[in-house]
């Protein structure tokens, strides 16, 4: 899924964060689309993976992204009450609430994992979010060395 090659590992100079965003089809993806069609500039560091619903975002996806070398993961979907499938985002919220704590406890802290609600109308929020997350990850630096989930076998 993610095969980022780390050319920047070890040096923060010129570090370009690689951020994987798992977003739902109905809200955040549409929000990202709006940001694009509105010509809102935002950081090019995010790779968007579209899923039908945040309820479909299995914690394994997040792990896989970190395994592939993501410096951070963003998960985003519809605001509470707006889910296209009524309650997918409520289910997802519980899952994240625990999973983020588990990741933090095992060494992947909140500088590496972000959550948001972005609706189809919030193109501006999406652009600001990406810019903000990118800056935070840039400040945190490359995750390569400290990432406990990173695939190291093929080396």
């Amino acid at each position, binding site marked *: 899924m993610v095969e980022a090659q780390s050319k920047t590992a070890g040096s923060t100079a010129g570090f370009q964060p690689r951020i994987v965003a798992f977003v739902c089809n109905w809200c955040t993806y549409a929000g990202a689309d709006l940001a694009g069609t509105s010509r809102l500039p935002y950081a090019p560091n995010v790779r968007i993976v579209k899923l039908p619903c945040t309820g479909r975002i299995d914690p394994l996806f997040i792990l896989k992204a970190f395994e592939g070398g993501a410096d951070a993961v963003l998960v985003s979907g519809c605001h509470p009450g707006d889910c296209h499938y009524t309650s997918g985002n409520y289910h997802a919220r519980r899952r994240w609430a625990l999973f983020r*704590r588990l990741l933090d406890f095992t060494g992947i*802290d909140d500088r590496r994992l972000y959550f948001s609600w972005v609706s189809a109308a919030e193109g501006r929020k999406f652009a600001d979010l990406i810019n903000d997350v990118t800056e935070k990850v840039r400040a945190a630096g490359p995750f390569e060395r400290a990432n406990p989930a*990173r695939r190291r076998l093929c080396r």
Partner: protein
Amino acid sequence: MQMIDAIRADAAKVLQEGRAKLVIGYRARGGHRGPVFLSDPAGAAALVYDDACKQNLAVYLRKPEVRARMPVAVVAPPAVMRSLVLLAAEAQLKGPEVVVLAVGDGVYHGVLDLAGVEALLKEKYAGLAPSPDLLRRIEELAAMTPEQRAAFWTAEFAKCTRCYACRAACPGCYCSRCIVEKNMPQWISTAAAEHGNYAWNVIRAFHLAGRCTLCGACEAACPQGIPLMLLNGMLAEDVARQFGAKPGYDREAKPVIGSWNPDDDQGFIR
């Protein structure tokens, strides 16, 4: 009468009376404790019970060989009783399939059905929680930097040979095909190396989030001594704190993950 004598007498009695076709209890093998399966009342003398009995015998209720001999009586301390209630809540166990030889803190509560177990747990063992020592170790770890925690777990998970004893020892791990055995795609690397071991151990713990009854069988089973209870304990604390849930006390309880509340905290979501 000593506690063990009462357990032995009841084990023989449930077999004699036909309340159970099989009794699963503990036996001694030197310093080790393992399970014993009795169908003959005369065998009840083999039963032992002490602090070394770390295995969660509820795990056997998923074995087809055991299921073929239901109803089954299980010698169960409170954590195992919680597992039985959890299995009932998750539709893995029906009330008439099991009777419980309920062992408490230095007392024996006699033969109970699942309703009796639930009442006993609520009355006498409502306060079951991670031990103070476990909580202290969890706090120590939480106080470290993320890099230190990553290093700690990388070193611990490096010991993992992927024998899956943790999974095998856990009554909650009853999936007929575990996620680690699914390979289209292969979500979790099967190699006993860094990334596969991290993913396996983290996902194992997460699949038990809101379900783990803190019996400790997985950690006791781990041949490599990986402190799995740190993960389980941390999640159990969080489940209690965030959702006010304690699995294994209520046969009607909804699963923590799999249910939701509109008022769940979302302070971490922007």
